Every structure is written in C-alpha cells, then in structure tokens.
C-alpha cells in the first residue's frame, strides 16, 4: 500500500483530472530508437499505453516528437507524462498528440521506481498516489 502526494508544474494540463496506473522509468529515454509504437513499449520492456508515464528527462533527436505522435496514432499513447525536466522534444510531442504533460517539483523521478504499478490521479498541480 502506497499513499503519497507530489507536486507537479502543469505544462499541458487537461481540463479534467487524469487517473491511471503509473509507469516509472529511472533513466533518460530517447524516443527515437527506444520506442516500439506498434507495441507501446519503451526499450522493449516498459509498457506505456494508457499509463501515467514518469521519466527523468528525454534525450536525442527532435524527430522523437513524431514518435510520441506515433504512439498516439497506434492507440498506444500514455495517458499523461510526468517528466523530471521539460524539453522541446517531449513538449512538442505531447502538444501534437494531445497528451497532458507535467514537470515533477521537488522530487527525483529516479527515486520513485517503486511507484510503478500504483494507481494515481493528477489534479490541481498535484499527483496523488494511492493503492
């Protein structure tokens, strides 16, 4: 059982609250090269479809924005992305794909891997993990 509230900065907030199962990746990801859009998998093992995806930062080519769009086009997009550090690739990818985007405040994504699989809701600049 986990109960935790973390603050986030809203970069691209949706109109309503967004809830789902959390998937935490503890290292930087390169959307170009690391993502299988057909399967909704990052690095062959992290399933991101319909999840609240958390990662510390994105690396690599700006073409990566199109890969985020590809996840959406294949119905495999995450429900929301919470990143440790905002970057143009992720911002643009989320805008063109309609994915809510947040930046984690005051915590380090790398220390939150134990939250993978937990249910959470994001609303009012806060993520509530419960379950």
């Amino acid at each position, binding site marked *: 059982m986990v109960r935790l509230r973390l603050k986030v900065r809203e970069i691209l907030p949706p109109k309503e609250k967004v809830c789902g199962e959390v998937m935490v990746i503890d290292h930087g990801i390169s959307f170009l090269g690391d993502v299988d859009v057909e399967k909704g998998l990052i690095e062959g093992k992290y399933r991101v479809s319909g999840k609240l995806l958390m990662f510390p930062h994105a690396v690599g080519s700006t073409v990566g924005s199109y890969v985020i769009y*590809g996840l959406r086009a294949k119905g495999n997009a995450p429900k929301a992305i919470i990143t440790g550090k905002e970057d143009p690739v992720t911002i643009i990818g989320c805008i063109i794909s309609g994915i809510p985007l947040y930046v984690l405040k005051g915590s380090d994504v790398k220390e939150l891997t134990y939250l993978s699989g937990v249910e959470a809701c994001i609303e009012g600049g806060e993520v509530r993990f419960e379950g």
Partner: protein
Amino acid sequence: MFLNKEEEQMLQGEYGEVVSKALTAIVKVGEVLGADSLIDISHAHVSGISYFNIGDAGIDFIESLAFEGASFRVFTTANPYAVIQGYKQRNFSDEVLSKQLKVVSALRSMGAKAFTCAPYFIRKPKAGEHIAWAESNAVLFANSVLGAYTNREGGPLALFEALTGKAYNAGVHLPEGRKPRCVVEVETPKNYLEAALTGYAVGRRCPSEIPYVKGLKSIKEGMMRSFLAAFGATSGAPMAVLEGVTPGWRKHGEKIKELPKVEVDDSEIRAVIEEGGKTHVKPDLYIIGCPHLSSEELIEILKELSSCRRYEGATEIWLITGRYVSVPDHLNRLNPNIKVLFDVCPVVTRLDKLGIRTVVTDSGKALYYLPKLAKVDVVIKDRYEIISEILRGCG
C-alpha cells in the same frame, strides 16, 4: 509570455486550428527556454524529411497537416529527402519510395520552395534578419557567416514556425545569446579535408558553447561550409564567432582575452582520420556534397572529371546538390557512373539496404552521421584526392 494582438488571435484559433496548435507549441517551448515574447521570422527551414528518420508517424503527421489545408505563412524551404533513384541496379521497394514521396508532396502542397540542406543558396538571409531554421549546417552558416539570427531548431518546431511565421525570442535571437564562451585558435585549413577535420575536432572540444575561432578568415566559402557542417555534427552550438568573418565579430573585442582557451592541435585532427581507420577497404561509393554543393563547386568538380570519357571503376560517384545549380550542358552527361543527384541526401538514406558497405567522402559531417543513420562504414579523404582516384579509374 507577452503576445501581441495577432499572436493572441492565432492562439485563440482565429487563424484555424493548425495555426493555434503550432503557436501553442512555440509558446510552450519558448517559455521553457526563457523567452518573454515571440518574433516575426522571414524564412523557415524544416528538417525531418527523410522517411528513414521520421517513420510512418512523421509522415502521418505532416500529411494530416497538409490535408487539413495548412500552409506556410513565410518563405519556407525543407531539408533534402532520402536518395530514391537507387544505386547501380538496386532500388528501394515501391512502398519506401511512395512513402518518401508522400512527405515531399505534403510539404510542397503547404508551400515548401526547395529541398536542400543549403537553403542559403535558395534565399540568402541578410545580417540581422530573424529566421527559424532547422538543419545544423545551415543554422551555423546563417549565424556565423551571414550574421542572420536563428536558433538550432528541431524538425517539428521549425514546421510550426513555418506555419505561423513566428519564433520564440530567446537564444541567439538576442545579443546576449550570441556571445562566445571560449576561444579556439586553429591552423588555417589548406584543403577540404583539413577544413572538415578541424571543424570536427573543434566541435568535440566545444560540444555545447559558442566558440570564438581564429584562423579561418582567408578560407574559401566551400571550405568554410565544410568546417561548419563538421563542427555542427560534433557540437550542439548554434553558431561560432569567426574572427574576420562573422558580421560584428569585432564587438567582442577585449573580452575575448578573458575567455578560456581551448587547444585543438594537429594530433587531435589526425585522430579523427585514424578512428575511421578503414582506408585500405575498397569503397562502393564516393559521396561529395555534404552539405550540398554550390554551383561553383559542382562545376569545378565536373570540369576536373570532364577528361574522363569512360569511367571503368567499380565505385559509383554521387555529387549531391540542389535545384539552384545551373550546369553547362557539356558537363551534364559525363558518364553513367558519375551521378549528379538533386534534392536528396545519402546520409539520411539507409545505404546498407542498397548493398553499400563502405563510402568515401570529403565531409566531416558525413563522417559522423553515415555510420549512425545510413549504416555504412566511412573513409574521409580530401576532395581532390577523391577526384584523382576517380580519374585513375578512367579508361
């Protein structure tokens, strides 16, 4: 961020949904990068054109924008696309060809004027002009040689800037963002190979900051482009201040003396060649034209090769350029193995799938990217050495 009335209206959808979405992206990225306003741009240059790079998702996105009726609001050029006419008798599948052509058609329908990595040959921006270009070699040439102002944009962002005519006002659009942070003194390159290797080495030593470079004042434009393209491959910086070249270079004046000095010596430059290491391997292809050749460069090479009536070497030759060149007729049809390719880029083409294993080029940028993107081995040689090798294969 402060937005003027027109920008507010764009954001609110009065110019259509595509413009609204595009401006939202620019504003968000601008906010992250510390911009407090937007600026009008006069020329956008879009990258992310090769099917091999952007994949089905990229095609889908660009095609849907075009199908929604989006069009570029400012003069817009685009990067070259994948080589689609094949190598010897080998070609890509019809599926790959048609997917690549879909991207080209969609961009043309939105108003793209040309496909080249040297957009300054299509429309040369003036010093102080604000533009929004993706494609690092073009960005570096615009800022460092022409004195125009552009950040090093990514593919989708430059597309949005083309659709809105706006860029975020940060980075090298501001005087503060154009200041050098280190000083490099290089030995003046005597040929294309040295220009490329020097750029490659300087980029390695200054991977993120704008350098102040001494020693390039007297080199010709083609070598300058070669230097900058290689520098842009190994460095993320959007410009270099070139002593005696960059408009306004003098205003950095005395402050240069206070900057940290970065040494780039000969051994470092030689090391770049040795890392390639495969000089004994027989190449499948010669590539000259990364970045795209100017008219003058192409004519010079074709003249050198014009004595070659019957080329019998097994190695095919690709000279890469854009539609801006005009070549005298008698130089145009030399030999089936010497091909002048327009509007394309072998570096963003899966050359391995055409059966090519080793490429010889004079480009430092190609040296960096060919193994990563085209999946082939590369050997770097000087342009004139390549021409001599080709001439030795002539009957």
